[in-house]
């Protein structure tokens, strides 16, 4: 059993390492990312690019995150909050 699990782990790591050797890093950032880097500061006025993407370009994603947090709190308080008698 241990030999089988070890074999599977070695196989998965081998596949990951082999496939990561073929990746090319840092060559092309794509059209959208290049636009963010070039025009981000002038369009939003924020120096922090991550913040300008989170709160300006991709703000719908942030809305979804806050709704997820809200629903998580709702669920926790529904399950764990005590009875008022």
């Amino acid at each position, binding site marked *: 059993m241990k030999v089988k699990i070890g074999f599977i782990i070695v196989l998965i790591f081998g596949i990951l390492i082999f496939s990561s050797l073929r990746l090319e890093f840092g060559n092309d950032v794509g059209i959208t990312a290049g636009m963010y880097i070039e025009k981000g500061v002038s369009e939003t006025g924020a120096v922090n690019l991550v913040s300008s993407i989170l*709160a300006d370009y991709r703000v719908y994603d942030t809305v979804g995150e806050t709704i997820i947090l809200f629903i998580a709190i709702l669920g*926790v308080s529904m399950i764990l909050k005590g009875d008022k008698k």
Partner: protein
Amino acid sequence: MSSRIVETATNIIVPFMILFGVYIVINGHLTPGGGFQGGVILGSCALLVYIVFGAKKRVKGISIFENIAFSNPFKSSQVFLKDISILENISALVFLFIGLSGIILGGFLFSNFIARGTPGTITSGGTIPFINIAIGLKVAAGFAILFFIVLEYIERRD
């Protein structure tokens, strides 16, 4: 519940943690950080206070944190929970209100309708600082509620 050393150290550390969290939120458009990160720092302040002082126990020694930041959370746990739930809802509504007012003033939802300002200063970024502050308050209040409910459940079960 805990020793006097831990309580005193918490009273000293917590104001600086709150200051650091507020700094991360307000400077979210200038330095690394933002609403979520600063809000989590502020929420972990609440977790520290809950763990050290207990969620229900009334503490005699008055700390700065008790009086200024959370308006004496040990006065009554249910009242405190109600207050902070209202804070969470209001900050979520402010966040959505900024987005909806973008329709009227800017033309589409969540448009950046305030003047950009010079990049690098605290007044730059248009609506980004306001969105960051709203998210920061919401995340801080949400994590405080989460920790409060879980710790209260543990205390009640024991």
